[in-house]
């Protein structure tokens, strides 16, 4: 092991630079106290940063105009998901207009890699990745998001996000 020996006076007289640093810190503290909104750091977790709507965070299942789920249980998202973390159970809907719908839809968010393939694969804009990014939880089960959480969690104000694809409009357009 070799040791570098500094011979210059700055290395010997270490007190002045320390004082210099302390002055800088003290100045910043005073300016932060007086101009809080210019501050660069956030007081997490009391304060949150909100990303734009195109941020690929936690999933949202969209709804139709009548409030029911837009998802048709086609399982294309589950097929494309590289992490294999989407589980869907399909069933027969009583209305022939809907025909197939999911009775269970679960995303294991700990396995999700937030690639966005599910969003990409969905033919009816039923699943979107929203701006929420906090995935803290207290135990394993809080990381498996169920259908109710994905569609109607409290943070989605107004009971869900409206899908862009509407069957009635499609039918009217002759498709």
């Amino acid at each position, binding site marked *: 092991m070799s040791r570098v020996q500094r011979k210059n006076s700055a290395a010997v007289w270490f007190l002045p630079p320390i004082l210099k640093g302390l002055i800088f810190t003290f100045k910043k503290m005073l300016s932060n106290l007086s101009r809080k909104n210019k501050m660069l750091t956030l007081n997490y977790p009391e304060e949150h940063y909100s990303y734009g709507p195109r941020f690929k965070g936690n999933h949202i299942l969209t709804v139709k105009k009548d409030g029911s789920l837009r998802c*048709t*249980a*086609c*399982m*294309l998202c589950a*097929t*494309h998901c590289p992490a294999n973390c989407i589980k869907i159970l*399909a*069933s*027969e809907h009583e209305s*022939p*207009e809907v*025909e*197939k719908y999911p009775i269970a839809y679960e995303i294991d968010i700990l396995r999700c890699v937030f690639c966005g393939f599910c969003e990409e694969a969905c*033919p*009816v804009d039923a699943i979107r990745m929203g701006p929420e990014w906090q995935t803290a939880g207290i135990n394993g089960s809080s990381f498996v998001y169920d259908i109710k959480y994905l569609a109607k969690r409290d943070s989605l104000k107004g009971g869900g996000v409206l899908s862009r694809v509407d069957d009635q409009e*499609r*039918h009217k*357009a*002759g*498709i």
Partner: protein
Amino acid sequence: MSDKLIKCEINNKEIEVSEGTSIIEAFKKLDQPIAHYCWHPGLSVAGVCRLCMVEIEGIPKFQIACNTKVTEGMKISNQSEKIKAAVRWGLEFHLINHPLDCPICDQAGECELQEQYMQFGKYSPNMSENKVKKRKVVDLGSKIVLDSERCILCSRCVRFTDEISKTHELGIFNRGDKSEIGIFKDKPLENEYAVNTVDICPVGALTSKEFRFKQRVWYLKTADSICTGCSTGCNIEVDYNEEGLFRARPRYNKEINGYWMCDKGREIYRLPNRIGRLWKAKVPSSDSDKSSYSIGSVAALKKIRKLFLEKGSDGDSYSKNGLKADEAILILTAQYTTEEYEDLISFFLQFLGSKESIFYWKNNPENFDDFDGLLLRGDKNPNTKGLLEILQKKEALNPWEHLQKTLEEKKVGTIWVAGPENQKVYPDIEEKLRYFESHCENIIWWTAHPLLDSQKVWQIPIKTFFEKEGTIINFAGRAQKIKAVSFFVPSALSLSESVVILRGEELKRSEPPFLKAPRKANHFTYRKKVL
């Protein structure tokens, strides 16, 4: 079809076919691509879809391959740009009123429209008119749902009910773009072969209620097997994944079932599935508060060996502990493979009993010899012939009355029962179990599904026909091999494996080949660049 061979040329490849062969059959024989919907090898020719067009040298117009016979020296092709365009526009015409249903359509992934669009279509749609709307989710009976919008009116299903099941339930109603498939008033599609129409429907217009929405087909793997629903032994393929079996479909065998199978037989896919299976061996307990407890099947058989088979103090007799050789009885049902019978019977004759104490349990003597004229037989066991042949060979074919006489006359030590895998077709199973129970000390019962809990019955879980290999012999004496599809209950044993343990030998179990099956390769999901 006569035996005379004639030569023709398809896409510049020569082939010899027998006289009377249609061009499409020659194409299939040569494995040349040809678009088609209405032609099905098991049905008559309808010639309605007009997709199988080919060019024949010397004939100015395109001809349909399914309804044109090959003649000597015919030169046929479907590779020119002109004919490809004709097929492409034919396909577009089929699809102009087709709904955008693939996401909720059960056929997606095995749909001929999807496949043939990728192979012969790939056009951009030019239709600007509104699509014609038709009925959706129409109930055709207890088994099948119709979606008229998806139907391409190939008439395969109508021809099936006219020609094969001869029940004439389906028809095409109305005209032009209003035409649709339907049933007559008060005559639902309820024949014993109805679900075959789902298989032959090239699109998702007919879907089976049993399979609807359970799985997307690209999550399933397919394996060949034999139907064990009756003694006909139809060749089938089963679709399964790591969760279990999901459906059974017919596999072509000219000698036995052709292209079809019956709807009762399709239900056998439920038998090996985990729900309702006997998961572990059940052994009588000496506690008064419960009649049995569960242990692993190997441990249970070792226990049986110790109790009923271990060498006695005199050194040569295997029959000890309250059991004398002539007190054991073996009862066999015809729901096992031939190899298993061989092993179990020779073991029984060696250690436990005599030829006089082996009995064959016939489930439904009243309608045992029924036959519906197509496939379905009254004998609901897959291997009756095989069992009877072995019993005859060993001269151990004793009438059932002897069993009753024996049981009435003396107290029997142990009854060994190779019970039915399909308990549904043994309606008197509970009654018989109670009867045996009251006339013996112990019953050792091989079964796939749990029986009544009892303080006398040892239940050993067996492998179903989808979990073991072997031979089964159908009503006509035709021996067919079955292969293991997958394993669903880890502790289940075949009779042969049970015998190995009962003999005190070490069981070498082959590792389950794949409990996690890889997904079926499907270019709709994997060749993303194409789409």
